[in-house]
């Protein structure tokens, strides 16, 4: 069996020199950002460091995995070729698959995580994004894509069942459901915080709904299937909606129609989520997805260009004092919480669902798995680096003023500024007021969730690069752009949750499994929406901002799913007789187990009130019993206590599931190594690719 991916000849001298050059440049850039301790550092170092690290990782590490560990075989027919049905299985051009795969994996996660993690300073997050992606996330996506391709495009859950046994399968299924619920709740909270008391943002985000419906009707009835045409019209309308929101904000009569507080907006999002889950896909979800994908890729390209043109200075220090765990945005020390906070962008378990979903059914050639699996994750990681730049070009004082919840720094602007100044980050009330006016907002204090601060960062980069004076437009463009694809994830996630639940309930009572039977559709959508709606609504009541408790929970859940994917991959590598290369997935797996276990343990049992769910609940209960709480806080306290116990239960569940799975993997690995009976490798038999044969014959 000839291995096509191994380069036939040795690298030329010129090639060696070029790669040595890239290595030196990359090492200097990483060294510069790691060792710099001055006032500010130019963001161009971040870009250079990232590009060099990715280039080396792709050229050497992914080539090593492709040739030695997985042994990609370009002469082997892929499922797309063997099972070609013109629908699900279609051999597709690798650039097209790359586009689809990237659009599917890149969501709001890599924009939010780095923004929050910037409270530790720019360095910990940046290093984790680079190292985590090259050695962890890219590897996970790549190997999962490859193993699924070798198994006729099976899903992660099926592979877990086939290779590990029923425990792995159930863990994967339940894990996916849980992540979906937490993810949607936290993303909903991000949108709510961005729209809170902002008629401009609220009206613009609201306008995206009729625009999507209009485009849906257009692409279905007026010009069926003209996707590009419909999308371009939709994008034009969205830009118009941003400008229209600005006009509306000036009308005292109209603006009060769009001025709401957090809990009210949460209820609206919940109602919207339910409606979106039960209406047909063509009406809302599909056109919204076209628009958000187009916006996402366009805006990311624009941001990359703007950062390269402008080369703004990063003003955040490399480390802040908050690495000790006292940070205002979320509680918890650098280890393990930076690794939990930045999930997407470094390693994201959710990707393994995409890598074992539609993508393996489209691969025309097995050798493309490297470019698509490893490559697309590198691009996502680069998006995370840009988010880190956008967060850290802000004055640290401004960054903390926007992102710190009122429960930490105080409700009044003067209190908040005093607290932030006491940390050593200068900022004034006047400065914040001027910034808010420039951005077309009434206030920017305590706008937690990451979206507003990312939007301020992006708006200042864009307006500096492409002409000043448009700050408020850029700001609301950025908010609209984030809300657009957050709501797409919310719609799509609710629908997936509904399908999975229907699948499950169909085993109990058959008609419930029918995806077109309306009583079942309403029931299951209702269950899924109330599950995430509960966390979302509680998040808006939480004086600490909700993000503080929900985001780590999401990170833990997402990393747990990554651990499941890596458990499956490690088992398969050992089964194929490559024990000596098992470290490729076992090392990131071990790291994930360490960080998720530590983080889950701390979230459960830490005596620190802002970290431990249980200690927070007990403290609140004690205060409530003693009657020391002010009346408004006493009213919400029982709900918050209950919420803490729910969050604690979930955390314990994640912790226990992860460990059951790890022990199960160890059991299977032990049986394989000692030659005891175990489940066989479930790989589809080798069939030569006709495409390659023809090519060879010509």
């Amino acid at each position, binding site marked *: 069996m000839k291995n096509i991916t191994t380069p036939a000849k040795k690298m030329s001298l010129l090639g060696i020199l070029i790669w040595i050059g890239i290595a030196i440049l990359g090492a200097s850039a990483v060294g510069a950002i790691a060792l710099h301790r001055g006032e500010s550092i130019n963001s161009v170092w971040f870009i250079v460091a990232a590009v060099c690290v990715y280039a080396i990782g792709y050229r050497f590490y992914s080539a090593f995995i492709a040739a030695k560990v997985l042994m990609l075989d370009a002469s082997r027919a892929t499922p797309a070729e063997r099972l070609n049905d*013109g*629908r*699900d299985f*279609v051999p597709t*051009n690798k*650039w*097209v698959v790359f*586009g*689809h795969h990237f659009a*599917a*994996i*890149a*969501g*709001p*996660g890599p924009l939010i995580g780095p923004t929050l993690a910037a409270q530790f300073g720019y360095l910990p997050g940046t290093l984790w994004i680079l190292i985590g992606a090259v050695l962890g996330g890219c590897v996970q996506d790549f190997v999962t894509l490859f193993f699924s391709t070798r198994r006729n495009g099976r899903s992660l859950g099926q592979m877990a069942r086939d290779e590990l046994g029923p425990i792995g399968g159930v863990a994967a299924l339940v894990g*996916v459901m849980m992540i979906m619920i937490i*993810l949607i709740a936290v*993303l909903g909270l991000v949108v709510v915080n961005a729209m809170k008391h902002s008629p401009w943002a609220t009206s613009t985000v609201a306008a995206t709904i009729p625009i999507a419906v209009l485009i849906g009707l257009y*692409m*279905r*009835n007026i010009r*069926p*299937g*003209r*996707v*590009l*045409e419909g*999308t371009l019209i939709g994008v034009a309308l969205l830009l118009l909606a941003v400008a229209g929101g600005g006009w509306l904000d000036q009308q005292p009569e109209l603006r009060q129609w769009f001025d709401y507080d957090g809990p009210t907006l949460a209820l609206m999002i919940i109602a919207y989520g339910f409606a979106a889950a039960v209406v047909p*896909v*063509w009406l809302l*979800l*599909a056109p919204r*997805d*076209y628009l958000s994908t187009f916006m996402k890729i366009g805006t990311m390209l624009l941001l990359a260009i703007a950062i390269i043109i402008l080369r703004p200075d990063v003003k955040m220090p490399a480390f802040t004092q908050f690495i000790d765990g006292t940070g205002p945005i979320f509680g918890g020390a650098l280890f393990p919480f930076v690794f939990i906070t930045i*999930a*997407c962008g470094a390693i*994201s378990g*959710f*990707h393994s*669902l*995409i890598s074992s*979903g*539609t993508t393996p059914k489209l691969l025309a050639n097995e050798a493309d798995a490297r470019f698509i699996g490893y490559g697309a994750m590198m691009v996502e990681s680069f998006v995370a680096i840009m988010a880190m730049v956008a967060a850290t070009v802000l004055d640290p004082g401004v960054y903390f003023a926007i992102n710190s919840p009122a429960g930490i720094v105080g409700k009044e602007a003067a209190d908040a500024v005093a607290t932030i100044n006491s940390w050593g980050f200068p900022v004034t009330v006047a400065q914040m007021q001027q910034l808010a006016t420039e951005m077309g907002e009434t206030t920017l204090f305590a706008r937690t969730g990451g979206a507003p601060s990312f939007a301020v960062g992006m708006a200042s980069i864009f307006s500096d690069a492409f002409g000043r004076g448009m700050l408020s437009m850029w700001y609301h463009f950025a908010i609209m752009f984030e809300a657009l694809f957050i709501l*797409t*994830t919310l719609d*799509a*996630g609710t*629908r*997936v949750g509904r*399908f999975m639940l229907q699948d499950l309930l169909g085993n109990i009572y058959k008609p419930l499994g029918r*995806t077109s039977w309306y009583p079942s559709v309403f029931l299951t959508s209702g269950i899924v929406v109330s599950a995430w709606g509960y966390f979302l609504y509680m998040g808006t009541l939480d004086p600490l901002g909700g993000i503080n408790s929900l985001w780590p929970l*999401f990170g833990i859940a*997402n990393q747990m799913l990554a651990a499941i994917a890596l458990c499956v991959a490690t088992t398969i590598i050992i089964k194929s007789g490559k024990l000596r290369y098992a470290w490729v997935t076992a090392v990131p797996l071990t790291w994930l187990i360490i960080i998720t276990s530590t983080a889950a343990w701390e979230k459960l049992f830490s005596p620190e009130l802002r970290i431990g769910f249980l200690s927070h609940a007990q403290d609140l209960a004690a205060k409530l019993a003693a009657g020391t709480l002010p009346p408004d806080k006493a009213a919400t306290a029982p709900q918050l206590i209950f919420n803490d116990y729910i969050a604690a239960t979930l955390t314990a569940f994640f912790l226990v599931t992860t460990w059951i799975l790890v022990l199960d993997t160890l059991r299977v690995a032990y049986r394989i190594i000692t030659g005891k009976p175990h489940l066989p490798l479930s790989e589809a038999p080798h069939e030569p690719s006709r495409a390659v044969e023809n090519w060879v014959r010509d």
Partner: protein
Amino acid sequence: MIALKKIACHSWQLLRTISGDDAYERYLEHWHTHHANAGDQPLERKAFFKAEQNRKWNGVRRCC
């Protein structure tokens, strides 16, 4: 000039394929090579588009 035109054509085609704009044309091509002898007609543009959207959204499609 000709080379430039070729590149532009190629990129346009790639954009159409990535976005799914030419899905119906590709479907017709596939239908004529694989199912044409079955005796029935290929789906209309509108019916095809509807069926595709329902099929595509039947699973995990988008990520965080």
